[in-house]
């Protein structure tokens, strides 16, 4: 799979890799069947600002690059601003992804949502948005040749 320079940069030098022991929110999405699992950790201050975030990803080059870019994009933003970051924003920031890999960016968006929902639940607040369902077949049938 040929990737953009930006994707290669984030794949070879992923930003914000790691785990946070006392994270305020953690979101894990994906499953081994699809070959992608993404986990995002958030540290959120009293103003709902994401002051730190880290990720761990099992997956292809695109999965690693989108996780890295997603953490970059949400860092310093409020959780409400972070929720505005769709997969399309991540793809654009990465200067594009091959069509077959776009689902990786969806996974990144989902991981953020789950991490934020986890933070809200832990702080005893309602989750005013819907969480995407974990779907085994989110990438559908691909043609092989």
């Amino acid at each position, binding site marked *: 799979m040929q990737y953009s320079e930006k994707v290669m940069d984030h794949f*070879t030098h992923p930003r914000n890799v790691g785990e946070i022991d006392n994270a305020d929110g953690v979101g894990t999405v994906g499953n081994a069947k699809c070959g*992608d699992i993404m*986990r995002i950790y958030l540290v959120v201050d009293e103003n709902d600002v994401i002051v730190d975030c880290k990720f761990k990803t*099992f997956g292809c080059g695109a999965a690693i690059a989108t996780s890295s870019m997603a953490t970059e994009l949400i860092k310093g933003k409020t959780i409400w601003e972070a929720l505005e970051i769709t997969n399309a924003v991540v793809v654009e920031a990465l200067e594009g992804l091959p069509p077959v890999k776009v689902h990786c960016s969806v996974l990144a968006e989902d991981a953020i949502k789950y991490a934020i929902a986890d933070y809200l639940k832990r702080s005893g607040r309602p989750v005013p948005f819907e969480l995407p369902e974990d779907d085994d077949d989110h990438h559908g049938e691909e043609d*092989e040749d």
Partner: protein
Amino acid sequence: MSRFVYADNAATTPVSPEVIEAMAPCFSEVWGNPSSQHGKGYEAKAALDDARSRIASCLGCRPDEIYFTSCGTESDSWAIKGAAALMKKKGRTHIVTTKIEHHAVLHTCRALEKEGFEVTYVDVDSDGIVKMDELDAAITDKTALVAVMYANNEIGTVQPIREIAKLAKSRGALSFTDAVQAVGNLEIDLSTLGVDMLAMSGHKIHAPKGIGLLYVRRGVRIANLIDGGGQEKRKRGGTENLPYIVGLAKAVEIAVARIPELDKVREKRDRLIDGLLRIPYSTLNGSRENRLAGNVNIGFEFVEGESILMWLDMAGICASTGSACSSASLDASHVLLAIGVPHEKAHGSIRLSISHETTDEDVDYILETLPPIIERLRELSPLWEDHLKTKRN
């Protein structure tokens, strides 16, 4: 990038200088149409006949049992559909094959299912060898064809084709083997093998892409592939691709002559396997003994194959996650799933396919490059993180 190591010979191979040299006159001098009734045509016809005879003597069959095609997939597809059409007339509408065939075979069978054929996909054991008792049980008096690959493209396991052909024959069914990965890697003698049809491809053995062949035993009248002129005994019309046919003949001769040298390839393969299995949580996929001389397929737990390939590529090493044909697919390899490898391990498997050209230095380089890549990717992996936590507790 300082080093380049090509370890993806099961995907394709470079055309060898001898093959290029053998083909060259077919572009500049022997450019006639083999069907033409004049000197230029006779010259081309002689080159065509010569190439066919040489290949036949390498494979142990008669020249008129060889049909040139454009690739292995064409040969696979023709053999199966051609045999299906022939046997349907005899009331046989069932095909037996395995779960680890190349997509050229699996998708052809799927297409025949849509036309009303019944297909049984027989299991393989955890070593990747077809279960003979299941194969035996699958064959009925409706079975038209038993199609089992000679050697698997992903895990390199070699099937007992002689026994399978014998079994098929005893039950009145035809037998076919996809030998795309086998030619040049195993001794093949069609005079004793017993199969009715065998497919091979040129570009896996240093001939160009765009040439393959189908062996069809004399007397087995499979349906025509292309109706047209009288080429290939009217079964596959179209002017013969003479340069590539001549190149294929050269490539087959060289590949067969070098079979005794495969011991050296096997040594390097074993060194690779032993070295890579030193990486914690790694497993060899497929039988260790019963596998092609150049095939290494190893699963690394907690990491994903494409990421490994990307780092290898940046280090100048070409490898694969299995079949190059499925690289656009996100599903785990059907071959690895068939031998019982769980999904996440299947996703973390890579294939290294080495050749006569692979050097000891290449092997050393792979062995020193891969372990840190796996380590780096595990540091990124939530599965590894979870594993370490479970271990600690």
